[in-house]
C-alpha cells in the first residue's frame, strides 16, 4: 500500500499502531450534537470499523479500526455529520479539511447548568466558524463560569464566562447570603456595611454566586456578556503549564478577533523546520509582548476590559 500519511492525518485520520488500520476523529464543536448523527457513526463503526466508538478527550468521537483503503468511502458516509454540525469544508465528500486546529470544547453551559453565564456551545460554534479549517495546532475551550469544568486553563485559549453583577440596594434585605456565598465559595469580593453590600470590582471574578443566591433579585446580571480570556496553557512534554489571564471582562467579538489574529502571528513566526509547532512555544520564543502586539491588532476593547501588561507562565521545566 502506498499512502501519503501527511494527507491522512490532515484529513483527521490517525496513523495507528496497527498497520493499515486508521481511525477517524469526528469533531463536535461545543460538545453538543443531535443524537440522530449517532446512527451514522454507528454505521461507520459497524461496517468499516471494529464496532467501537471512542469518546475523545476533546469531546469528539473516534471511530477506530477502519481500513486505510476505505477512507474515501467513509468520507462520503460521514458527510451528513459534517454538514449537520456546520463544519467548514473545502470539498464536499472529502471528509475533514484539516486537523491541526482541534475541536473546540465546551462545558454544558447555560442551556442546563445554573452556574453558567452563557451558552457555551453556541459560542464554540461561532469560533469554529471563524477559525476552522486550519492546520495550525491551536486548542480552544470554553467554560460557563470560573468553576472551569472543561479545564480551559489547559488550552491555548481558555474562555471563562463572567457576569457583571448589578446591585439594587432598594431590593436588598441585608440577609447577608450573597456575602456569605461569595466569601465561602468564591473570592470574598462582597462586604456588608450599614446593612448594604459593596462589591470590590478587582476581586470579583463574575461567578454570579451573588445573583444566584440573592432571594430578592437585588443582585442581577448585566445584559452584556463578559469573559475572562486565559492563554497558552498546555499539557505535553516540554513545559506543561496552566493558562494565565490575558484579558478580563472582554467581549465575545474581541475574543474571536484575537484568536484570528493569532493565526496571522503563527504564520509569521512558526518554525517551519519542525513537523508542527504548538502556539505556546512560539510565544515562548518571541516573548509575550510581541504576541500581544499581533493579538490586539485592530481589536477595539471596551473600557471595561483589563489587559495584562505582561505574563509570566509557570509550569514544570526540565
Amino acid at each position: 500500500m502506498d499512502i501519503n500519511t501527511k494527507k491522512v492525518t490532515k484529513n483527521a485520520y490517525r496513523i495507528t499502531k496497527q498497520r493499515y488500520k486508521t481511525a477517524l476523529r469526528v469533531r463536535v464543536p461545543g460538545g453538543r450534537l443531535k443524537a440522530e448523527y449517532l446512527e451514522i457513526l454507528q454505521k461507520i463503526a459497524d461496517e468499516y470499523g471494529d464496532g467501537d466508538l471512542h469518546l475523545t478527550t476533546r469531546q469528539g468521537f473516534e471511530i477506530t479500526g477502519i481500513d486505510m483503503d476505505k477512507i474515501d468511502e467513509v468520507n462520503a458516509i460521514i458527510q451528513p455529520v459534517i454538514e449537520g454540525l456546520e463544519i467548514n469544508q473545502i470539498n464536499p465528500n472529502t471528509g475533514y479539511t484539516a486537523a491541526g486546529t482541534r475541536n473546540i470544547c465546551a462545558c454544558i453551559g447555560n442551556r442546563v447548568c445554573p452556574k453558567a453565564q452563557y451558552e457555551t456551545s453556541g459560542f464554540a460554534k461561532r469560533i469554529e466558524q471563524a477559525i476552522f479549517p486550519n492546520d495550525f495546532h491551536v486548542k480552544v475551550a470554553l467554560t460557563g463560569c470560573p468553576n472551569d469544568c472543561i479545564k480551559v486553563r489547559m488550552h491555548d485559549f481558555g474562555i471563562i464566562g463572567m457576569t457583571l453583577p448589578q446591585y439594587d440596594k432598594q431590593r436588598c434585605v441585608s440577609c447577608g447570603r450573597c456575602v456569605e456565598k461569595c466569601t465561602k465559595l468564591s473570592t470574598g469580593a462582597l462586604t456588608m456595611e450599614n446593612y448594604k453590600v459593596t462589591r470590590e470590582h478587582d476581586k470579583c471574578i463574575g461567578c454570579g454566586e451573588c445573583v444566584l443566591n440573592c432571594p430578592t433579585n437585588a443582585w442581577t446580571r448585566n445584559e452584556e456578556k463578559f469573559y475572562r480570556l486565559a492563554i497558552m496553557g498546555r499539557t505535553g512534554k516540554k513545559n506543561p503549564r496552566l493558562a494565565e489571564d490575558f484579558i478580563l471582562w472582554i467581549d465575545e467579538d474581541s475574543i474571536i478577533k484575537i484568536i484570528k489574529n493569532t493565526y496571522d502571528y503563527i504564520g509569521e513566526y512558526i518554525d517551519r523546520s519542525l513537523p508542527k509547532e504548538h502556539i505556546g512555544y512560539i510565544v515562548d520564543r518571541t516573548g509575550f509582548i510581541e504576541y500581544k502586539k499581533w493579538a490586539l491588532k485592530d481589536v477595539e476593547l471596551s473600557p471595561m476590559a483589563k489587559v495584562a501588561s505582561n505574563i509570566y507562565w509557570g509550569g514544570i521545566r526540565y
Partner: protein
Amino acid sequence: MKIEISKEDFNKSLHRLGDEYRIYAPVAMAYKGTFSDTDSIRYKEINTLDEIEFNLKSHFSPKEVILPITQVLFYFTEDQYKEPETEKKKLLVFLRACDIHAVKRMDQIYLENGQRDPYYQEVRDTVKFVLIGCEKSYRNCFCVSMGTNKTEDYSLGIKPVGDQVLLDIKDEELNAYFFGEEKDFEMNYVTSNDIKVLIPEPHQIAKDIAEAPLWREYDERCVACGKCNFVCSTCTCFRMQDIFYKDNENNGERRRVWASCQVDGYTDMAGGHSFRKRHGDRMRYKVLHKVYDYNKRFGYHMCVGCGRCDDACPQYISFSTCVNKLHDLGKEER
C-alpha cells in the same frame, strides 16, 4: 360599565392616567432572572399595555409596590428628625385575583391590628387595582382551595383579546379615562387547580404539633434562604435598621426592610439569644402562621394560594404539600 376599546385607545388612556398615577404591572425583565439569560417577572412602572406580562405568573408579588422592600421612615440629625417627602402621584396596580385577596391580608396587619401604620396607610389610600383575569391555573397555584380565585374588589377589570381590550370599569373616577363601545363580558377566573390543599380545622392541630416528626425533614432540606417569604404576597414582616452616616455619625436614617422568618437572625434578641434554630422549626412557624395562627386571630387564612413559595424554593420544598401533610396528621390523631 363594561366596554370594548382598542389597544391603541387603551394606551392613550394609560398615557393620560400617567399624569396622575404611577402605573405598575408585572413585566418580564430580560436577563434579570436568577439564572443567566432568563427573565425575572416582577413589578415595574409601565407606560403601555404591551409591556405587561399577561401570560405568566409573576415571580414576585405586587406586594413590593405598596410595601417597599426598603423604606426610609425618617432621617435624623442630633436633635431633629424629618420624614421623607411622600409620593405625589397615586398608584394603579395590575394584578391577579389572589393578589387582590393578599392586599386584604396586608391591610389586616398594617391597618387593623392595633396601631394603624401611617406609612402603609398613606400609600394604600392612593392605590387602585386593575384585575388581570386568569385564563388558566398555573403550576403550584391552589387559589380555589383558599377561596381566592375570584374577586369583585377592583377598580378596573382588564381582558385583552387580540387587538382589543375588554374593560370592566367599576370605579366612577376611571370612567372619565376610558371610552369605548359597551360590551358585556365576564372576567376570567379559574375554577379548579391541579393542586388541592386541605387545611386542618384548628381543633385538628394538636397542642404538641411542634414536636411532630413532620418538621424534622425540613431541618435538612431547607437552606433558610427566605425566597418563599420574599415572593409571598402575604408575608408582612419587617425589621428596623438605623443607619449612621459614615462621614457624620450624628446623622442618619431609620429604615424598615422586609424580613423573613426562614432567614437567620429573625429571632435574634439582645444578649444573643435566638429561637427556632432548626430550619424545620422555621418551616413550622411559617406554615402554621399561614393556615392556623392568623386564622385563629382574624377568622380567615392568611395564605391565598398563589403558590409562589413553591415556584421559588431552590430546594423544591412545597408549602402546599406540607399543609396537606399537616391535614393528614390531624386526621390520624383524631
